[in-house]
């Protein structure tokens, strides 16, 4: 458990000074390097989403339990056999096709996700960020693309899709003059937002109810932006971590699925290792023909295999290659040490798609893999394929593992207990 933040009232009483500031840094969970060292090794979470499902007959093993026979795909991941669990018979029970992407990480009830309509809730990565985000330079990273991350008011959080930029933000230090300018930009940004907030409030007194509701959402975003800048300001005086890797110079596009995935995974590992953030959602979208030997169909095209053997084989080649990249990432995470633990032990890695069968746009029986994170991994946990267990129940379990004592998440009816 992180140290309890200082209660503001206590602080004011004991200091005996009338302080007009709304809060001081010491009142939020402390972030100084020393304090962090003193803390228990942190827990982290990575959510990886893929839009086009996975051919689950090649993914799910036939047998349940720790002694399952690896399926075609799971053979690739066998080096990490004790470090992950595959779940079958689990989903959000949606029927919204590709559109279910927006709910994959939020797990709100099915009534809120319709093909044409959405009333979304907060996504798992943002829930985590809301609790522990202030302890790191970045509360969370939303990267890769897609529509997986949502805030508490159901507003989508756009993803950063340029790896070079993300790397820069995380690790590249400017000259003293650049840093001074950056600090000023952050402070200017805050005062600009103050004015924006005031103007919105003034407008609000003059508009109708529908407009006011919308402007209230805007006002929430203004506050959130202010918080982000406050956090930026706090961190701007701490040097960015140095990493011993070459600065990436290329942002890979659609067809370079594997290079792109590898690059993102590398950044994720560095971000965790340097404790720059503890919550990341990564979307590995792909539509085009990936540059993989022997693949001549577009990914989306191959995913509509219609059981045709030649197409299935193409799809399998793509998915095997993707899992190979995942396996490399798991290996790196397992090799990196943090105190007595490996980085993998401290990081829950959730890897899934919003489609269970992309050929029919089916949103049940999702391919789900959970690795690392210090869970008691069980090989293959098989639930009823006809009557799926809610994925939100796993999300709730993951929150608990992060030390966040939530009572529910999304549409959860309880926390899964097997792991």
């Amino acid at each position, binding site marked *: 458990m992180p140290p309890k933040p200082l209660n503001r009232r206590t602080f004011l009483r004991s200091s005996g000074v009338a302080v007009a500031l709304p809060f001081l840094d010491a009142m939020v969970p402390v972030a100084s390097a020393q304090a962090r060292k003193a803390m228990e090794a942190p827990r982290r979470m990575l959510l990886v989403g893929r839009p086009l499902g996975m051919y689950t007959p090649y993914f799910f093993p036939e047998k349940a339990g720790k002694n399952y026979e690896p399926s075609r795909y799971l053979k690739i991941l066998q080096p990490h056999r004790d470090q992950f669990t595959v779940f079958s018979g689990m989903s959000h029970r949606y*029927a919204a*096709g*590709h*559109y279910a992407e927006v709910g994959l990480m939020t797990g709100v009830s099915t009534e809120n996700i319709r*093909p*044409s309509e959405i009333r979304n809730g907060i996504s798992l990565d943002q829930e985590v960020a809301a609790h522990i985000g202030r302890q790191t330079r970045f509360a969370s990273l939303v990267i890769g693309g*897609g*529509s997986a991350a949502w805030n508490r008011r159901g*507003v*989508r*959080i*756009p993803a950063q899709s340029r790896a070079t930029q993300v790397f820069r933000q995380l690790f590249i230090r400017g000259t003293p003059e650049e840093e001074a300018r950056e600090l*000023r*930009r952050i402070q*200017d*940004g805050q*005062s*600009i937002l103050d*004015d*924006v907030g005031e*103007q*919105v409030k003034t*407008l609000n*007194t*003059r*508009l*109708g*109810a*529908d*407009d006011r509701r*919308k*402007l209230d*959402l*805007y006002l929430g*975003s203004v506050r959130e*932006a202010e*918080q*982000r800048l406050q956090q930026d300001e706090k961190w701007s005086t701490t040097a960015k971590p140095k990493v011993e890797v070459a600065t990436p110079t*290329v942002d890979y*596009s659609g067809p370079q699925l594997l290079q792109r995935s590898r690059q993102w995974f590398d950044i994720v590992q560095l971000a965790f290792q340097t404790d720059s953030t503890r919550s990341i959602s990564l979307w590995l979208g792909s*539509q*085009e*023909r990936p540059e993989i030997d022997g693949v*001549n*169909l*577009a990914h*989306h*095209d191959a995913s*509509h295999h*219609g*059981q*045709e053997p030649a*197409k299935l084989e193409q799809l399998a080649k793509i998915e095997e290659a993707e899992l190979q990249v995942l396996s490399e990432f798991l290996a790196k995470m397992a090799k990196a040490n943090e105190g007595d633990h490996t980085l993998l032990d401290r990081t829950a890695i959730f890897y899934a798609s919003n489609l269970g*069968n992309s*050929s*029919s*746009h*089916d*949103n*049940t029986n999702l391919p789900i893999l959970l690795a690392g994170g210090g869970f008691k991994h069980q090989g293959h946990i098989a639930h009823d394929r006809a009557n799926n267990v809610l994925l939100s129940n796993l999300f709730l379990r993951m929150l608990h593992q992060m030390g966040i004592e939530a009572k529910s998440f999304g549409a959860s009816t309880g926390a899964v207990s097997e792991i």
Partner: protein
Amino acid sequence: MRRFLPLLFLAFISPELTPNAVGQMPAGSFASEVKPLLDGHCISCHGPDVQKAGLRLDTLATDLRDERTRAKWIRVHDRVAAGEMPPKKSEAPPQREVTAATRWLNRELHAASLEQQQTQGRVVVRRLNNTEYENTLHDLLGMKIDLKDMLPEETSVAGFDNVAAGLELSATHLLLYQEAAEKAVAAVVPVSPPIPFKDRRTGRELSEKGSNFRQTLTRSCMLKDDALIVYSKLPRYGLCVTATVPANGRYRVRMSAAAVGAQNRAVPAAFMVLETSGREDAVVREIRDIPHGKPSVIEYEVDLNRGQAFVLNLLNRWDIRQFKKPIEEYDGPGILLEWLEIEGPIGAFPSASYDRLFAGVPLKARSVARAEAEGRTPPKIAPTRPAQSWLTDPLVPVSANPKADAERLIRDFLPRAFRRPVNEDLLKLYVARVHAKLDQKYSFYDAMMYGYKSILSSPHFLLFLESGLAKSPPAKPAEQRLDSYALAARLSYFLWSGPPDDELLKLAANGTLLEPAVLRAQTERLLNAPQSQRFIENFTGQWLDLRKIDATIPDPQLYGDFDGTLLWAMPRETQRFFEEVLKNDLSLLEFVDSDWTMLNERLANHYGIAGVTGNEFRKVKLPPGSHRGGVMTHASILKVTADGTQTSPILRGKWVLEQIIGKPPSPPPADVPALEPDIRGATTIRQQLDKHRSIASCASCHVHIDPPGFALEAFDPIGGFREFYRATSRTSRGLVTLPGYTGRPFYRGPDVEKGGQTHDGRAFETIDDYKKILLEDKEQLARNLTQKLLIYATGAEIQFADREVVEKIVATLKTKNYGLRTLVHEVVQSRPFLNK
């Protein structure tokens, strides 16, 4: 995932039930008018015991003022009015019960919807979308700056990305707007005084610069003395590329070039821009014909950013690699380039854009400005100082009277940015903010940057504030009418996707814009201005999905006849076609069928139409038997409705229902696997679909979806007309040789089955027949486009009270030959457009 976002429910409006017709009906009540039908014919499937489609009617609230409740009753009304409910297989209700229920619902839904519009306004407050944001800064600063790519991608609602419901404003947006504003303001300030820059390379020199020429010389290009002859698209790192330019600005490109080859014709070449630091491919700015014969000097002006370069390349796929003899003997089409030159930046210094933000403020090197501010002796800047040194010590605006200049500039900029006069308090606030920064020892430039960023982050800039500004409190019905400034903005964002210009603002200031005749004249003026290209591009980009034109790449093994010049031409045919209809007030039915289209040589070749030479688009009368005419037969549409390799009658059928007819099908049930076309050449998609339709739950929708898809099955994924499918594996019917086809040969697959019948049994053989069937319901075609245009023009979905407006417009169009320009005017003069 855009395409999976909300579809608007627009279908099934029966014109005979418009409020005009029911206005005189006795009021009645829900209990007397609707309940009898529900109790007798609906509750058994939508009641306490069974709730089909999750709908329960006996407990459904009847307070229609609630938007969610209203949405449910609208669905009930529409299904019953269309005769779809109760379902055919159950006992038919008495007609009088159906009529009573639909009339009551229609009237009450209309009244409730109208009340909502009159109290709250029809369009919820919305922000500029990315396109509008970029255009707005472009028009404000008179300079094109790429800002759109910095901002999060937009979400479409009801088919358009300017609809309020889709325009979220997250914290990320707010922070990125600050960054974008900073980029835009910085872009108008030149880094250095004009440093003459000129670079000329002969063909030989060009080939010596690019490493990839080692592979391509003597294979797809060759040297002849100092000239370079290019026969096929050159790869990255082996391009005809100029030097990288040292500063942002406009450049003059000159080249001495000629088309070569025995065909004795001009050859289209792409004028492109390359980001020399990235790995992205060069971007096509324009395609130009290079004349055949002796080399002539060709000039071209292009806007470039520092680090960019100009590229000349072929986009055609003339596969010279299949030519086995020495390249010197090749006589196919190519381009001979003697030299390529770039010079600039040209134009005034500082640019007019600088004056938009810093008029009357001199520029000095930053080191000089600092020294002066600190009272030190400023360093000497040599007139010959190299471009590189200016990057670390750039020019900045330096004012001798910072506070006065700041106030002058802010006062000038603010009303332009806010698109209306700004009250004195707000003006003073911004001036005070900048003055405070000056007091905090910010440099003049930094303080102004702060001011401009603040202004460009303001809700008055980012949002369409269409009510509540002039009066408080609003919300009396008559007061939902837009004031003249809001109307000016709505008109300019509709037809220019950008802010109102001086003339519109002047007419807003004197209020005359509110007069219908003035509004009409302004609509004409805006349509006739070059900025209306933005309307054409944005509207057709979304209505007809042209934005997806390069979403898929056709399989090169099957479609070796696809290349960059064809891709470039495809959306242009459709845009020019729309423009032609709009310009001449031609009938919107031309979109369904026409005896002409807009073609250039490449596209005409693709369509097998003779007599069109050159890269320019022109109106071409279609010869009999061309099977072309109307947008559905444009290669662009046929490409965006296919997945690159294969066509699917389902996708195309769905597209026609949604975009052309305006009756979108329901989404497919979750438990039915999708169909897969078979490109091995064994079964056709038709044979598979026939199987699919034998499933009852599929049939009810597929009888609507499949017919237009079948009618278009005679067109391949790149829009070519076909009698048979192309196959990659050997078939009994052997290889196919097409005239002029230079790709790897393919096999002849099964023949395309012709014909089909519509859901109500009307048979058709070809797309020509099918278009005639569509044209039997002209009003529906007009209704669809009216709805789409109204959504786009106002930024809100069609609401129930809008239906009467739509029907009125359709009735007017009917008497005016369904003219598209007439439709634009009707939309502009309509209640939804004139009111918030």
